């Protein structure tokens, strides 16, 4: 079986962090050739900081985040503050189908790498820019990462316990993966359009505008009721019980999520946990009663579950047809039986760090499986391969670029650079 793009589509990935790189990584899974450009001074900040460990430990090659989001890419370095570096970017653009960048507005302008400049070099080029808040509007130049984008979309303000004002940022910087996924969709839409028109285009994704749709329900609710939706915490306005409870076990991580979506499920839940008396308790007899007495209900469940080992609670509740799941930590996710059953995680061997499991392609294609075996590149790992094969450079030219500092494989700490 073959991949979708069979290396016939080339992507120039100038992005850093997660949102832009995720789009490049997904295109690599589809079989595109993805060339990631970094600067030996300003390498991808998701590689972390040189100060984290001595140089011989190669700290910037040990970032789980970078090594996940850049799998399957070729890695080259170019000094983008040097006109020769910019010239080489343009030469790669001439051979590329897609350019991904997620710099703050103004940076590509300073590099002289705007779509207006690049399109004449390659009218078929599809360029996507992924600024946090968009080109245009008073916040054009405001800075944001995944968590700040998530906040400005309104998500953080809703993430509170039901009895507290303190908002919490989500655990996964949701703005980033949503930006990457939305961007990937946009790239594919433009690529499809190009099949008909023969021409590329510039696509703009203000990352916050990709996240706000995830709160469409709350935005409609506010307009229809005039009330800002109240934070729910672990509760739900239409169901009770609906929460997270600690189970028995030697460790403190045995948390269980459970919900009863009907009176029948509530009775089944109570019986499954040996709580017959609660199933018939008038305080909990129907949804309205359980909502009115939810603190008492949660207290009863907290007391009861504290003595039940989590695995036993899960299997008893599942057998009773109750919606339940363990609150999985990282090792529990890695060990999840259903994920293992479907072979979700894929082992990849990478230089410096060795073999680990990485999240696999989510879209399981019956005829064109994902290309997933290649690791993230070391800094400048594919300089020779890309510049020789794509741009036809000689060994002498490569050596000269390296001695001039335009390319390289050693990180340079910009604070110490002259």
């Amino acid at each position: 079986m073959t991949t979708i793009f069979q290396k016939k589509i080339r992507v120039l990935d100038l992005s850093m962090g997660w949102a832009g790189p995720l789009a490049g990584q997904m295109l690599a899974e589809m079989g595109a050739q993805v060339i990631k450009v970094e600067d030996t001074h300003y390498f991808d900040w998701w590689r972390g900081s040189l100060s984290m460990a001595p140089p011989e430990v190669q700290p910037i090659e040990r970032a789980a985040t970078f090594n996940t989001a850049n799998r399957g890419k070729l890695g080259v370095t170019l000094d983008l503050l040097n006109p020769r570096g910019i010239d080489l970017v343009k030469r790669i653009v001439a051979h590329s189908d897609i350019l991904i960048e997620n710099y703050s507005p103004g940076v590509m302008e300073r590099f002289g790498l705007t779509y207006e400049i690049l399109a004449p070099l390659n009218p078929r080029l599809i360029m996507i820019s992924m600024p946090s808040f968009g080109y245009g509007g008073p916040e054009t130049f405001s800075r944001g990462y995944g968590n700040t984008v998530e906040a400005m979309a309104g998500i953080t303000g809703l993430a509170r316990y039901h009895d507290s004002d303190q908002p919490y940022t989500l655990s996964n910087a949701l703005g980033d993966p949503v930006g990457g996924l939305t961007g990937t969709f946009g790239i594919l839409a433009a690529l499809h359009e190009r099949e008909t028109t023969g021409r590329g285009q510039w696509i703009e994704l203000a990352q916050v505008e990709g996240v706000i749709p995830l709160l469409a329900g709350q935005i409609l609710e506010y307009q229809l009721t005039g009330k800002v939706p109240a934070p729910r915490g672990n509760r739900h306005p239409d169901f009770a019980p609906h929460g997270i409870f600690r189970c028995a076990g030697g460790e403190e991580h045995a948390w269980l999520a459970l919900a009863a979506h009907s009176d029948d499920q509530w009775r089944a839940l109570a019986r499954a946990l040996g709580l017959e008396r609660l199933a018939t308790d008038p305080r909990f007899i129907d949804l309205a009663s359980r909502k009115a007495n939810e603190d008492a209900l949660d207290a009863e469940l907290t007391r009861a579950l504290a003595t039940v080992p989590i695995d036993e609670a899960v299997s008893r509740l599942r057998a009773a047809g109750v919606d339940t799941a363990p609150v999985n930590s990282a090792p529990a996710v890695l060990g999840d039986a259903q994920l293992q059953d479907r072979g979700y995680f894929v082992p990849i061997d990478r230089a410096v760090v060795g073999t680990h499991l990485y999240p696999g392609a989510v879209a399981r294609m019956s005829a064109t499986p994902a290309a997933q075996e290649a690791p993230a590149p070391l800094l400048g790992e594919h300089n020779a391969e890309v510049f020789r094969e794509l741009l036809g450079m000689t060994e002498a030219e490569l050596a000269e670029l390296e001695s001039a500092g335009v390319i390289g494989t050693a990180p340079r700490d910009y604070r110490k650079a002259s």
Partner: protein
Amino acid sequence: MRYHALNDIKVVDLTHFIAGPYATKLLADYGAKVIKVEPPAGEGGRGPLFAFLNTNKLGVTLDLKHPRGRALIRELLADADLLVENFAPGTLARLGLEPSELLETFPRLSLVSISNFGQDGAESGGMLSDLTLFARGGWTFPIGERDRAPLTPPGSLAQYVGGLYGAVGAMQAIFARDLTTHRGQHVDISLLEATVATMIYETVAFQYNGILRERAGRRFAVGPFLIVTLKCRDGYAGLQCVTDKQFQGLCDLMQRPDLKTDDRFNTALKRMVSNDALLEIVAGFFLEHDRRWLYREGQARAIPLVPVPSVAEVLEWEQTRARDYFETIDDPALGRIRIPGAPLRMHSHRPDATRPAPRLGQHNREVLGALPGVGADGLATLERSGVIAGASA
């Protein structure tokens, strides 16, 4: 907005709830002809969110449990590129629409199936809700206070993530057919896997360093950064201080240049070790200032620092106003209402205004009436026998 990039793609949309409809909404907003097929009683619930998730789609009704309904869905599939569905695995086959048979009968058609756990595996067909999907997928464990239960994320966020994977997967099937295989295929998307895919900090980082990421209270995590939601004089603000430059900017903002060279904080590694001490200083400063002031002054120093807005404030945010982001539609059920706009701005052409979500059976005549097996006169018969409902006249 309605763009035209996908206007040669035809989608038969059998989805309901959020993940499936969001996938087909993205296809429709970018130009695909999406025919949403509802049972004669309408999609279960048909709550306010229907107005957002079904813009730019054509709406028809068909009873797929009725032999005539099954025959007509096949007529719709005859020239379709995609069938998108999020039934429980096995449901399509029970409706006489067995996936492998459909791929055989309609060689250009691809199927996109979105389900809780995927089409196979021991738990395929199992139950999940927002609460248990977030919990199972790893999002919940690291959020909240150490002395309280983990805090579940708000809303149905992971459902939308699944929808995004569905829209991307649909485009992957189109490209695979057009460039490589010249046939359709089956795309299988598990919401659990989609949820886990966006939790790379957890699964990969844990293998690298063996450190179990615990709930860190107001902080995202304890690391060589300060990512935190802090109380201000008039609300909360979010700070994401990651790089050396941002830390130096933060010191300037607080008028504490001494901290730049402070031996506890002058490298990323030290800021991880001394994270509590740094948090205490920054939290004290935020408490004495208004969030708008912090936002303006922080951003002036290139620090990712934002006020934490409510949903109401997002609707009124001058940035979304200036960019005409929210779109006002005249929804048949809700009336004039503002909905989030199309996330990607394509510059090759001008988009049209959004078409509101269809009324029940609104496009029965246009879509079903044009099928060879129906004809304009046949609609009334179909409605009388309960195969369709809604506007047939």
